[in-house]
């Protein structure tokens, strides 16, 4: 499922020939995302990131999948966060941990996931994997 969602994003972006349209789309995604309320944007949900802030909330659902909600104070990061969340949302911890995340590279946004910390995305994916690890342990101990 995660792979399929990635493929859909890649196809969606293949449609854009110009950087401008790609970013316009990301900005659109950012605007559309529900995000978090100001109350929900708690310090402890902050994912360490250098430039723009990213908040990430996760909860294990009844059906054994994880629900992610997130937000950012920068609109482009918000759009990227929306993409990442859409890929991981409603998947099981196991599937999340097994996933090979490549869509960022494939849509030409590689630097956003690099070590450069120019935004919080790499840290966000790391945080998602951490949540998945914790939830998986939780499931096993139940």
């Amino acid at each position, binding site marked *: 499922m995660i792979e399929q969602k990635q493929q859909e994003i890649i196809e969606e972006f293949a449609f854009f020939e110009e*950087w*401008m349209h790609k*970013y*316009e789309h990301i*900005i659109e995604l950012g605007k559309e995302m529900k995000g978090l309320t100001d109350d929900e944007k708690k310090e402890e949900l902050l994912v360490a990131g*250098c*430039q*723009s802030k990213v908040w990430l909330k996760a909860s294990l659902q009844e059906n054994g999948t994880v629900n992610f909600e997130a937000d950012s*104070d*920068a*609109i*482009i*990061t918000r759009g990227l966060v929306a993409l990442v969340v859409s890929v991981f949302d409603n998947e099981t911890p196991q599937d999340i941990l097994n996933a090979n995340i490549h869509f960022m590279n494939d849509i030409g946004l590689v630097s956003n996931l690099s070590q450069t910390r*120019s*935004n919080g995305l790499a840290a966000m994916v790391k945080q998602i994997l951490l949540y998945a690890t914790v939830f998986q342990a939780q499931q096993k101990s139940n």
Partner: protein
Amino acid sequence: MDNDTLQHKMRELKTQFPALNQTVYGRPLVYLDNAATTQKPQRVIDSISEYYSKWNANIHRGAHYLANASTEKFEATRSALAEMLHANFREEIIFTQGSTDSVNMLSTILENEVEEGDEIWVTEMEHHANFVPWQMLALKKKAHFRYIPMLPSGEWDLAYAKNEITDRAKIVAFNWVSNALGTVNPVDELISLAKTAGAYVVIDGAQAVAHFDINVQALNCDFFLFSAHKMYGPTGLGVLWGRKELLEKLPPYRFGGEMIRKVSVTGTTFNDLPFKYEAGTPNIEAVIAFNESISFCKEVGRADMHKHELHLLKLATEELRKIEGSTIYADLENKVGVLSFNVEGIHSADIGTLLDQQGVAVRTGHHCTQPLWEKLGTTGSVRASFACYNTVEDVELFIAALNKSVNMLR
């Protein structure tokens, strides 16, 4: 020199910088991140290649041809720096790893000069490198860490400084030019206040050395420091100038080879200046190549550089004012070529990302001056900073890209 002649002169410079003659994402690179680090002229790059192809050897300790040759080239840079800074003695020039290393060295060797209850002063606009080491020293010595507030205009509150800096002040450390805003600070007045109080005066010249001629004697400061990489030089090299009589009396910092006179299992004695503060193999390559940066600045002339950069700043500032909702921080006369701004309702990082896609490199965020942004009620800005090799076309491309970005983000 009239403006046309100056523009003509500066236009030739760009060709000397290979990194500027390239495209990113298929667009000509417009490099406006010069306050973070400057590009290097070909002569600096060539000097490094030459060093490793012809002269490489460990210095000072050697007794062979290469070691002598590289030592002489190394020491020639020290002499060039002494001349550049108008130092009285060449052994007052200490090579460090960078500005950050220089400040940390100072805050360590000055440790015993500070007693409980003393005051250590900085300003609210300091780069973290000239803020945190002093904050930590104060913490360690139970001294009071104090700061000169910044006015909303981006200027120091000198009236406050006049009232508050007394003979309890032991160290007063401040930047000449703000890296976040580009403001040129009234250092003479603060030096005189600090000197009257009997404090050690430390000047962070990181953002000044590429724009102004420096005379440490005339400044009447005690320590002056900067990084080579912000003055068209290599990375990994800093300079610390200090008054000889102080450097002689203060304790050593790092221990190891070269800074030692005699080591035995029962005790160790230290070498003279400058070696006392240069333990271990230094960044030989960078020191030697930096001499080319020094010549470059001298030949072009910092006064012309500064004038040209201000011309670009003026053009950019005028255009920026036309953008609805734009705020320019420290929109003052007395600046270097730094334009620090925000556009209402838009995050600086978003502007940075879209400018980047258009080939324009700026910096966004807090620029390592968080207290400054706290004072200004925000968390950071977009910073476009100009160097001598930037052109009027660079400004035009920047402004066009900025307008496009702002439109996309609204």
